[in-house]
């Protein structure tokens, strides 16, 4: 067994003490500004993904060619997702040791990973043959499952994100 030369969260302690982390933590206004950007980007990610998911599920009011709708929405989803990750990383740095211990935070990252895998599966399965069902209703079973899972996962991600601030150790 390796001797413990440092506490298990030495990395988190280092991030906590980093210049960026310290600057955000000690500023009265940086955290709320970054948090506002984070919420806006999550709203854009969830809002645009929900439009695509509802189309995949086959909700009639979203009937536009599925392929074109996905191509319309994807750039917005990706830009907003990248900005959500950047703003989220900055918020994390401001209290790395705290977030690291937070269970809702850990589950949130895990759920984002699962949502990513779900999307990847959709892209290598049903999306490959989208030409066959682009303007068809009902949508193929694989597309319905992908849309429903994605929508559910993203709603769970919002709940987990909100719960971080209401549970140990950040309440």
């Amino acid at each position, binding site marked *: 067994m390796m001797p413990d030369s440092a506490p298990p969260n030495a990395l988190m302690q280092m991030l906590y003490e980093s210049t960026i982390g310290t600057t955000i933590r000690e500023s009265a206004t940086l955290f709320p500004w970054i*948090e*506002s950007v984070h*919420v*806006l980007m999550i*709203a*854009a990610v*969830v809002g645009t993904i*929900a439009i695509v998911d509802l189309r995949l599920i086959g909700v009639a009011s979203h009937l536009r060619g599925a392929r074109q709708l996905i191509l319309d929405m994807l750039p917005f989803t990706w830009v907003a997702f990248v900005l959500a990750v950047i703003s989220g990383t900055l918020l994390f740095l401001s209290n790395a040791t705290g977030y690291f211990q937070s269970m809702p935070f850990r589950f949130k990252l895990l759920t984002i990973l699962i949502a990513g895998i779900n999307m990847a599966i959709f892209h290598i399965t049903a999306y490959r043959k989208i030409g066959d069902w682009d303007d068809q209703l009902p949508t193929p079973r694989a597309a319905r499952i992908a849309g429903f899972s994605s929508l559910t996962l993203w709603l769970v991600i*919002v709940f987990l994100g909100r719960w971080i*601030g209401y549970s140990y150790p950040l309440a």
Partner: protein
Amino acid sequence: MSLQSFASHLYGTPISTAIRETSWIIPAVQSVHIIAIAGVVGAAIVMDLRLAGVLATDETPRAVVKRHLPWMWSSLALLLTSGFVLGLGEPYRVLMNAVFWVKMAMVVTGFTLTLLFRYPILHPDYRIEHARAAALIKPLAWASLAIWVVVVFCGRWIAYYQ
């Protein structure tokens, strides 16, 4: 009755106390509130950017608005309902907060713009280039999108501004 005494009266009601004292209600309703604003922002991105001539220009504005306006109304209804529950639980936090009133002014403006500049588009005879105030449609589409962005910022700042 002053706003302060109204807030104080609300604070003392059993429903307000119940919302505050049940630990999961406020985070759960806040999560629903964020999901509702996500619905608003999603619908606003698609409709406003179509009217601004940026997105889905192969489709008529009418087709885009017809598809997304119902989602905008439902999301706004959910936003107001969840916001109402939050305000009921913590009346001082919102009613006595200037940022909250800026947010309300923005929501009313965004709502009015949606009503005045989206609803007529649904009419079958509507032609965007012949519409009254046609020159205003693009700038107002951008303004509408900006208003929802400000609403999100105000929402978060209510928690920090006293």
